[in-house]
């Protein structure tokens, strides 16, 4: 068998660009310990979603709209109606009538077939009852190898990783008998030895010899990557991280070469005269498949659009109502109360300066709690800001040699926070304890100690089984609290320490940082006596995806470190005097306090209370009361979605609290399910609305934003992040098989923290588990593309759209729907491709 049949004619540099374009289609996936949300189609946002959806249907068999039966349910439940269909037809310019769409609701789904690869061509002729399918074998073999190569904590012994994924695979494949033994592929090892030794060279040769037409190269390569989307996403993450650090990582190209090598080996290596002509026929069928995919879903997209219009319409109406009720906001000192709010004392915005300003993360879960807190205590003013509180930090836990990022995945950390412990030797002691715990834990999984370990200590696990079942003990120590006693834990204080390189941060730099953050929060005057900064975190046990419920803006950690470090910074008197020089006069009577919103049970922790001046003790006590009451209200609201609403309060609270400590809980909380909107405005624009925990909220006062620098920041960072979250939920719902991680009860953690398999093996699974989206009877998450509402002048918004190509793509290709809250005009305007329209 001769592998190098034909020498490539295509210019290698040009083909390299094609390869890079195909690889750029794959979005990164973060590991489980930093499980932040990503739009898995981030590489496709340069085209409108319906078009991308058609392409992915043809390339990978994905589907990005819900089944028609689901739209029918929404229709019957009154979530959208004929008017929305008409509006959707008008907006999309679809060539169809309202009746066509109604008829669509009751017609069966059509699935258009995906493009065949060589593995599919072979399987079509293979007796897959009496032998394994090639698709399955190749997927399994590649996935297992990738896991072995990238493993960072499960296996003790791994392959020779020198040179990266492709060389590593070649060395293994040359010695691998399983294709011979399991699949009867004689000559596999000899063929592998003759493969080009360089990934890009292999791609060039293989494309040429597979006779893929030049125009199809990019699509073909993309479809190969999508067949291993999980591992491709992992490679994309490695590349993303390398680039943030100023380097690069080319292993995604290796992965592509590896999958392509299989195509080539199978086409040439399996002696069957039928294969080559069938493969040529398959290639010639590709364009037709593309067309049928495009045609088959066009109308479904109008249904999806109509549903989104229905949601937007209601929200626009609600926001407009608030505008009409009150006059436009003038100076901050004279904020009018809306007539509607005034009628309800619990929701009244205080005319005098608030007693507490409480900042929460923009997260949709904060909306529920903020509304509850405002209702419980009219003197509290709440505001929303990204939960890392603008601190571009990494955090080095006590005794740890490594630091981890505590900021959005889009950014690289610049500063470092560490724990200031009361006791200098504690770091070393904690390191020693964790080291011992690690060695002890690993004892059971070595080839020589496991047997005696079981005989000596196995019986003690009866106690663990009982304790864990009753929720008394955790199956393993808490990753943050482990290695510390209760008192030691309390004495630990995370504070801003140095730059990432370990250099001192001088006082001026600190002041600049603090000033920037306060301005970005629109918190520049009228400081209350207590300014509370609340990070958030989830409490869940035995849950591989727990980081996905923590703060995405803190890279999948809780926001505790950021909130505490910032509060301490802002309480510094020297810093305050420097802030005053920058026009930010924080009165001496203002104290910043840090806290954490526990999203699973809506409890709140307050930190560093030993540093609260005696003059503010009563204020803190009052705040504590208000928070407790707010937690009660928030739990009552969340109990509905958890199916606990019918229980009496004490029992309900117990049931919710149990979710934080029971090891068999697969739905501790609903996280960000339901998210659909992002409101960038002063709180008074939305305070009169019950947003149902579906909206991200960012405080923003354009009058204070000179040059619209803050707006630009919001539209290029938090807006992107909310879109990532929103589309992760969207994609995990519509195509859980590829962009979600499937059934939690089958999850099997890979490589210590890389991700999960669903069951034995298969591809690495990315995205959200079904249990985060579906309660067993219905989808709890409704897939809607995010609607962003900004309270700022239209020209300012347009200027930013003009300046940032990416933002323009997201809006004009309708990955995001953008609206302006027009206080002057008393309404809401929608931004479409061709300008602004009244919404």
């Amino acid at each position: 068998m001769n592998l190098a049949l034909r020498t490539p004619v295509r210019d290698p540099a040009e083909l390299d660009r094609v390869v890079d374009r195909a690889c750029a289609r794959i979005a990164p996936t973060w590991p489980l310990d930093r499980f932040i949300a990503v739009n898995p189609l981030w590489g496709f946002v340069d085209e409108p979603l319906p078009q991308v959806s058609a392409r992915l249907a043809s390339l990978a068999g994905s589907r990005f709209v819900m089944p028609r039966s689901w739209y029918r349910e929404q229709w019957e439940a009154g979530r959208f109606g004929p008017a929305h269909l008409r509006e959707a037809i008008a907006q999309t310019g679809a060539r169809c009538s309202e009746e066509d769409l109604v008829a669509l609701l009751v017609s069966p789904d059509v699935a258009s077939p995906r493009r065949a690869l060589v593995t599919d061509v072979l399987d079509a002729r293979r007796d897959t009852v009496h032998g394994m399918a090639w698709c399955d074998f190749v997927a399994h073999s590649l996935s297992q190898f990738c896991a072995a190569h990238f493993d960072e904590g499960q296996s003790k012994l791994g392959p020779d990783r020198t040179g990266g994924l492709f060389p590593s695979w070649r060395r293994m494949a040359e010695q691998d008998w399983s294709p011979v033994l399991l699949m009867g592929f004689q000559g596999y090892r000899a063929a592998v030895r003759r493969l080009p030794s360089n990934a890009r060279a292999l791609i060039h040769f293989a494309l040429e010899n597979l006779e893929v037409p030049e125009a199809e190269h990019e699509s073909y390569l993309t479809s190969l990557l999508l067949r291993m989307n999980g591992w491709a996403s992992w490679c994309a993450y490695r590349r993303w991280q390398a680039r943030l650090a100023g380097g690069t990582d080319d292993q995604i190209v290796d992965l592509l070469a590896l999958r392509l090598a299989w195509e080539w080996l199978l086409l040439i290596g399996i002696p069957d005269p039928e294969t080559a002509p069938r493969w040529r026929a398959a290639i010639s069928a590709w364009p037709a498949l593309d067309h049928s995919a495009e045609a088959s879903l066009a109308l479904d997209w109008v249904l999806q659009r109509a549903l989104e219009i229905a949601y937007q319409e209601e929200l626009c109406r609600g926001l407009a109502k608030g505008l009409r009720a009150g006059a436009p906001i003038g100076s901050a000192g004279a904020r009018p109360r809306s007539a509607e709010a005034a009628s309800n004392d619990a929701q009244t915005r205080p005319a005098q300066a608030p007693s507490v300003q409480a900042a929460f993360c923009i997260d949709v879960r904060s909306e529920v709690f903020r509304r509850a807190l405002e209702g419980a205590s009219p003197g509290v003013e709440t505001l929303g800001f990204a939960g890392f509180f603008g601190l571009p930090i990494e955090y080095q836990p006590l005794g740890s040699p490594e630091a981890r990022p505590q900021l959005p995945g889009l950014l690289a950390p610049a500063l470092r926070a560490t724990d200031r412990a009361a006791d200098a030797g504690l770091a070393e002691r904690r390191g020693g304890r964790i080291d011992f715990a690690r060695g002890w834990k690993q004892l059971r999984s070595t080839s020589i100690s496991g047997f005696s370990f079981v005989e000596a200590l196995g019986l003690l696990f009866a106690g663990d089984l009982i304790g864990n079942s009753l929720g008394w003990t955790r199956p393993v120590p808490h990753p943050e609290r482990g290695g510390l006693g209760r008192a030691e834990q309390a004495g630990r204080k995370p504070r801003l320490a140095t730059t990432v390189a370990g250099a001192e941060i001088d006082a001026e730099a600190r002041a600049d940082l603090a000033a920037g953050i306060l301005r970005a929060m629109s918190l520049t005057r009228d400081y209350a006596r207590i300014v509370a900064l609340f990070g958030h975190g989830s409490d869940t046990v035995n849950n591989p995806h727990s980081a996905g419920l923590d703060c995405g803006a803190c890279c999948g950690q809780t926001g505790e470190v950021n909130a505490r470090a910032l509060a301490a910074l802002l309480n510094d008197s020297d810093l305050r005097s420097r802030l005053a020089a920058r026009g930010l006069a924080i009165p001496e009577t203002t104290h910043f306090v840090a806290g954490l919103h526990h999203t699973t049970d809506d409890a709140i922790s307050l930190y560093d209370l030993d540093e609260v001046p005696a003059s503010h003790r009563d204020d803190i006590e009052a705040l504590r009361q208000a928070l407790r009451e707010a937690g009660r209200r928030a739990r009552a609201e969340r109990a509905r979605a958890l199916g606990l609403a019918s229980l009496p309060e004490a029992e309900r609270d117990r049931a919710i609290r149990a979710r934080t400590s029971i090891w068999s809980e697969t739905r501790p909380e609903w996280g960000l399910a339901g998210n659909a909107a992002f409101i960038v405005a002063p709180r008074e624009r939305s305070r009169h609305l019950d947003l149902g925990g579906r909206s991200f909220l960012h405080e923003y006062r354009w009058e204070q934003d000179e040059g619209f620098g803050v707006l630009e920041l919001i539209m290029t960072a938090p807006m992107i992040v909310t879109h990532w979250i929103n589309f992760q939920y969207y994609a995990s719902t519509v195509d859980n098989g590829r962009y979600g991680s499937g059934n939690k009860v089958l999850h099997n953690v890979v490589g210590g923290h890389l991700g999960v398999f669903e069951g034995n093996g298969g591809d690495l699974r990315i995205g959200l588990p079904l249990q985060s989206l579906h309660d067993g009877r219905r989808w709890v998450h409704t897939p809607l593309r995010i609607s962003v509402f900004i309270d700022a002048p239209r020209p300012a918004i347009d200027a930013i759209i003009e300046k940032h190509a990416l933002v323009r793509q997201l809006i004009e290709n309708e990955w995001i729907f953008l609206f302006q809250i027009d206080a002057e005009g008393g309404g809401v305007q929608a931004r479409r491709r061709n300008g602004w329209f009244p919404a």
Partner: protein
Amino acid sequence: MPAHALDPDFFLGLALLAIPLAYGLAAMMPLGPVRDPVSTAWRRAARAAASGFVLALVAAGAVAVRGAGIFRIFGFGAGRGGADALPALRLDLRLDDVGAVMLVLVAFIGLVILQFSRRYLDGDPGQVRYVRWFLATLATVSLLVLANHLVLVWLAWLGTSIALHQLLTFYDDRAPALIAAHKKFITSRLADACLLGAIALVAGSFGSADLDVVFARLDSDPRIADAPGVQVAALLFAAAAALKCAQLPFHGWLLQVMEAPTPVSALLHAGVVNLGGFLMIRLAPLIVEVEAAQLLLVVVGSLTAAIASLVMTTRVSIKVALAWSTCAQMGFMLLECGLGAWSLALLHLVAHSLYKAHAFLSSGSAVDVWRLQQQAPPVAKSGLGAWIGAGLVCLVGVAGFARVVLGEPLAAPASFALAGVVAVALTPLVVRALRGALANRLRWLAAALVLAAAYFGWHAVFEHLVALPSGASAMLGLRVAIVVLVFGLTFAVHVAMEVRPNGRIARTLYGPLFAGLYLDELFTRLTFRVWPARRVEAPPPPQTLTLESPFAGDRS
């Protein structure tokens, strides 16, 4: 029967029978027109599991008070023992110390895992089916433990296998689930055939398949074991145990059944796969008389223990690594049986069950473990000298310990060989105690001492707790030598990999170990060829199905 009516044993017998009945009835009872069938099913299951546990405790208490016994539930026809024994229709239950330990274990594991499953599977459309087959598995396992007649053992085991098969294929649209379960099906039927052959030979040789009769005969006339029929029977029993315990090369299915929900894996690994070991312990009086059977157990068990534990270190996912660990641990349990270390084998069975049930149920915590471990300072590699030194220290120390606890080495060579395994196991701890800060070094040393003390302590407790025949035969030396050789080699390979993770030995061994020595590839291919699994129908458009059955999983 009326004669028994006031006999406390009669009531104890009924209590024993009530254990499988409680599970079985709850498994089979129709739910009727209830408002919420799912909750009703779980509630009933919880009651059955709780009653099963209480009754198992009662049984254990009874053994402690009155000793072992045979309990006749009913019997027609001739009495036990004669040539006419087989056609007689009767049901005897057997309760002894081993059985009591097993009963409590199974009932406890069942209770915990069922409790876990209830919340874990919330929302799954198949919950009622799950509950039924889960309880059916517990019913058949507990019946197996209680059975006195070998045919009843056989039937109960067959039932266990069938019930478990339903749980393993709980998501029956997952092709890998079907293939793995199918491989298990084939292995189990092979084991069933071995078992049936063995039972026939026993009945032929002893004139009865009642365990108490067989043991009584063996006790009164040990030479009966020399008969070829008995020899072959013991060998077949051992082979059945090896098959049921997923020993190499029939291990593939055990590693691939992660396609079922986590608690099913926990149940399989903690409550079912070890039944092979239980059978050996149960049949100890027979097995100790047959050298070939013991040799088979030692060879298969020690090779599986060594190979599977090395393969485990190359696995990339938590559950599959745990499965290889089970495979190895079962090997170790069987080799203990083969060495006649019966009480240690029973200790191993019970301790492993509890450990592995916990390991599976807590496998979702792998990321938490990883997160914490990342916060520890890196460990400096120790050199070859440190390993050899630490190994010698452990050998001498453990030998001294064993001399005190176990007595004269030559009187109990098997126990000393197994103590050698402990010495090897302690070495990594002592290696760590050779360097670093004093406080940390003391901690590692203390850990080694605690581990050794716990090992010998439990050993003594189980020796005391259960009375089992001690095997001493002419060929024991050979079996001990095999174990010493295999574990010596494993230790050498382990040290080589620790000292030189990128050295030649590690590099050469990695490929074959990662491939599991290709043992399963051949078995799988043969399965596909000869007796293929039912194929999953071509999937309808995925989204329609996803909505109706969201837990169907990946169909791409």
